[in-house]
């Protein structure tokens, strides 16, 4: 069964998920989403907290994808089967070993080919 997963260290704290989620019931944008991004220490941390099984009230942009996942810019939110979510995690870990770009964005959000790039310095091919 598909459910929502969060990759916390990809979250940039923009709160698009929370803002859109809050609007789905009545068209009012606020901070009252079923997903919330906590910022307990000002700007140093962004912690997304879910209170939702992923059956979206109103998938605005794609019928199969919850609104929060559609609007997430970094790829920090996933709506997947458990095995597929695990694969995404491994892909991210591998991408991060290869390029520092993936500190800030998920490889599945990056539009250009990145796999098969030449090995990094000190890495044996």
């Amino acid at each position, binding site marked *: 069964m598909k459910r929502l997963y969060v990759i916390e*260290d*990809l979250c*940039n*704290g*923009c*709160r*698009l998920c929370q*803002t*859109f989620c*809050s*609007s789905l019931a*009545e*068209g*009012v*944008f*606020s*901070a*009252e989403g079923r997903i919330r991004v*906590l*910022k*307990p*220490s*000002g*700007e*140093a941390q*962004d912690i997304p907290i879910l209170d939702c099984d992923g059956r979206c009230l109103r998938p*605005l*942009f794609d019928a199969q994808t919850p609104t929060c996942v559609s*609007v997430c*810019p*970094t*790829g920090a939110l996933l709506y997947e089967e458990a095995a597929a979510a695990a694969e995404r995690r491994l892909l991210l870990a591998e991408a991060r070993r290869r390029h*520092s*770009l993936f*500190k*800030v*964005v998920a490889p599945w*959000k*990056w*539009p*250009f080919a990145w796999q098969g790039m030449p090995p990094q310095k000190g890495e044996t091919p």
Partner: protein
Amino acid sequence: MRTRAAAEQTILRVNLSNGTMRREPLPAEWTRQYLGARGMHSRLLFNEIPPHADPLGEENILYFGAGPLDGLPVGNGRMSVACKSPRGTVAEGSFGGFFGPEMRRAGVDYIALHGKADRPVYLYICDEHAELRDASHLWGLTTDQTDDALRRELPDADVQLRYIGPAGENGVHASVILGNRNNSGGRAGCGEVMGSKKLKAIAVRGTGGIGVADYPAFVQAYQTYRQRLDLATSRDAWTPVWSTYGAPVLARLFAEQGNLMTRNAQQMHWESDKAVRISAEAYLDRYVTKAKACFSCPWPACQKLHTIPDGEYAGWQGGNYWAGQPVVFGSLLDIDDLDFVLALSILCNRYGLDIFHVGFTLAWAMECYEKGILTRADTDGLELTFGCRDRQGLLELVRKIALRQGFGALLALGCSRAARQVGKGSERFCLAVKDQELEAIAQRSFYMVALGVAVSEVGPDHTRWYPPYPCNPNLLPPEELAALGIHLDLKKAFEGRNPEEKGKLLRWFSISRAVVESLPGCVFLVRDTLGLDMRPWWQMFRAATGMEVDYFEFLKAGERVINLERAFNVREGFRRADDHPPYRMANEDVPVFGFRRLSPDIFDPMLDEYYDAMGWSLTTSIPRAQTLQALGLADVAAALQACGVEVEA
């Protein structure tokens, strides 16, 4: 939960002199005419600040303002801060972060700060509640200490803050206001004015919601906007680069093209190995710990948090590396150590200093030192050469600027006023217009930049028009461009060193940016065609506010804003003679590349074309009566005439 309509705009007026406050709605018609944020501020500034008011006196008013799209997922948390600049012009700047939406949720769209407090205070707003609180314990703290102290004092983690550092308190030229630790704004002197009012900080918390008039239409317009900005679907090569690496990629590109100001712009090229050492790639590899974003930004990592991992500044934390730092602390000072560049930038943020002021003023002082105009006796013993070897000494000097001590007190004046004080020909290497330091983009190779910098009402500021990488007009067929009201010879307009069509191009860009900043939206998020084809912005504005407004009427708001800002400056005595490039750009050719100086035969026709396109007098730059009339600003013409300004028909 309390819900407000997106079109509603309320102002909270705070009199700091006697502590009284009142909330009042702004005229509904103003939302149509000026949209909000920067636009609304242009009207408020013109109406409410008396002519020739003392910028640091009781009559000056400091405004903080959100706009109709703030709090919605397109406002990007942008907000505007405005006042009369201590240099006499309009001072207006834009912030990112989360403060704007929080103001909207608290039911306050604008805050006007009148008068002056007699002791340090901060303003706390929580929904309907607002109070002035004592800030004596915060006075003198750096911005990061202020952020920590206020977060301890105010119970809610979501409270949003704006504050000044010691630079603003001490009245340093071009000090800025900060918030969310690393977002700053108002470099035309807003920090200085906030300090003069003894207002250390504003804290706001709101729990309401914002309703849009037509939700399905809003979501549909959002989808178009999002498609143009999404990494996968944007038709703009800058989108993926800027949204991850960020704007500092430019320094490396410019270094070899004769476009990078080096050693106080004595040269316009830099050794490429130096440029590589301070590049965006080096930054991302070594320092970045986390992606950050302003409220509801569609881009993954325009901002970042960074930590210097080891070395002399090990553990220093900060955020954001824009196109500015690699120039003002890198090539301009000939420093190619990214640790040190970031340390300087972190220090500026902590003290509430503007990086452009500090960078250009230091570069000016270094050139004076190398040419013997300033000596060790003037610099408190610091060997102030380009590529400064005495790093500790330079950091100490930045601190002294913020505290106005020793040699720092001279540099705290900004390079124009410092040059006037020092004399001996040092005015020739002061890179400033209207007493405000330049920003990071070359002028002798990008004529539109030269023109934009010269005419900008707030002094040099690249967010007033498009830096040399605007939207690509080839994405739209010529007939569609014409239908959107853009009539330009594109080939000529986009040639960097061709003076033709620059005035018309700048007019379009200034208007489109004024519209975006008034909605408000982010001026970075105009990639793809969003700066040329403003229809997605227009559709979102209509759907959110429910106002029926014609596309061209909507664009007129931008033109009104620029005319009002120009009228404010005109009333303060600024004329055509104040719109000029800095001495060096107008009198020296670019070495090696041979790009010509901006002599009058190049510059004056561009200026004429711009004034003509704007409908302003060619001799004085004063908006003509018929221009103001057509924009519905007849009262502005009358107000100017009442002050003895001759307005041409």
